[in-house]
């Protein structure tokens, strides 16, 4: 489930599904049309280094730097990046007391800040699962939530938050 896809100008649509407490992080360079979509599940890889080695995309602290590296490697430039995120919901699970969704969201913001990147739009929190599509031809990001589809546009941050 934890995964990362990067595309460079091929017009691909990157998608990730059933983001409950997980976070989908989409980054896009409108000039070179390079896009990347990461789906991570947990905030901190130090709790399970072996797992992180096997699948670094599972954790925010190992997945996000890799996503950035791959996007930069294909011609994405930090200053031009459009950065949007969805997910981090409080799902009904036995572990809800640990608030994974919220911790994932905070880990995302911390790592972006340390990487020198700000968010342009987000649809996080709440209780519903989301599906995300990033169109690398146009840079548009589509959100499917509660059976409704809408575009996640920059300049409308903190939607769907608590």
């Amino acid at each position, binding site marked *: 489930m934890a995964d990362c896809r990067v595309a460079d100008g091929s017009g691909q649509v990157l998608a990730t599904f059933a983001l409950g407490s997980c976070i989908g992080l989409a980054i896009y360079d409108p000039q070179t049309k390079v896009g990347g979509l990461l789906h991570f599940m947990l905030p901190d890889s130090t709790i399970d280094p072996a797992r992180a080695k096997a699948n670094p995309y599972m954790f925010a602290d190992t997945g996000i730097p890799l996503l950035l590296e791959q996007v930069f490697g294909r011609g994405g430039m930090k200053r031009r990046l459009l950065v949007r995120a969805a997910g981090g919901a409080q799902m009904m699970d036995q572990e809800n007391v640990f608030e994974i969704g919220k911790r994932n969201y905070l880990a995302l913001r911390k790592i972006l800040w340390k990487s020198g990147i*700000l*968010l342009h739009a987000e649809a996080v929190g709440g209780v519903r699962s989301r599906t995300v599509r990033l169109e690398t031809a146009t840079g548009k990001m589509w959100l499917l939530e509660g059976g409704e589809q809408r575009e996640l546009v920059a300049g409308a941050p903190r939607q769907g938050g608590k």
Partner: protein
Amino acid sequence: MAYRVLIVDDSPAMRNFVRRVMELSGFDLAVCFEAGDGGEALKVLSSEWVDAILTDINMPGMDGEEFLRRLSADEILKSIPAIVISTDATRNRMDRLTTLGARGYITKPFVPEDLREVLERTLGDPNA
């Protein structure tokens, strides 16, 4: 456009944070002056031009409100857009500061993206 900015706050850590947000928001900072209180800030402004001022309110020495008062009384300095960054979120304070010419206001604590929004609204989108 390359910006000349003055950041006024008695906390070096906060000045650093604000500067970082400005840079990450796409403002190309040609120079960033820093001051620990209103008095130091006025000293900087007596010999340097800036395009924007970001100021705290609660500072030892000359506080932000007095600093804004002095700016608004000066024919040249009053044209520089000033944004207030303060823990004081009271209506009274905000109204007074707007009367004194503050063009933007954000309350601490804030997320970086919210400060970016205030910067863009007050100074314009640097990426446009």
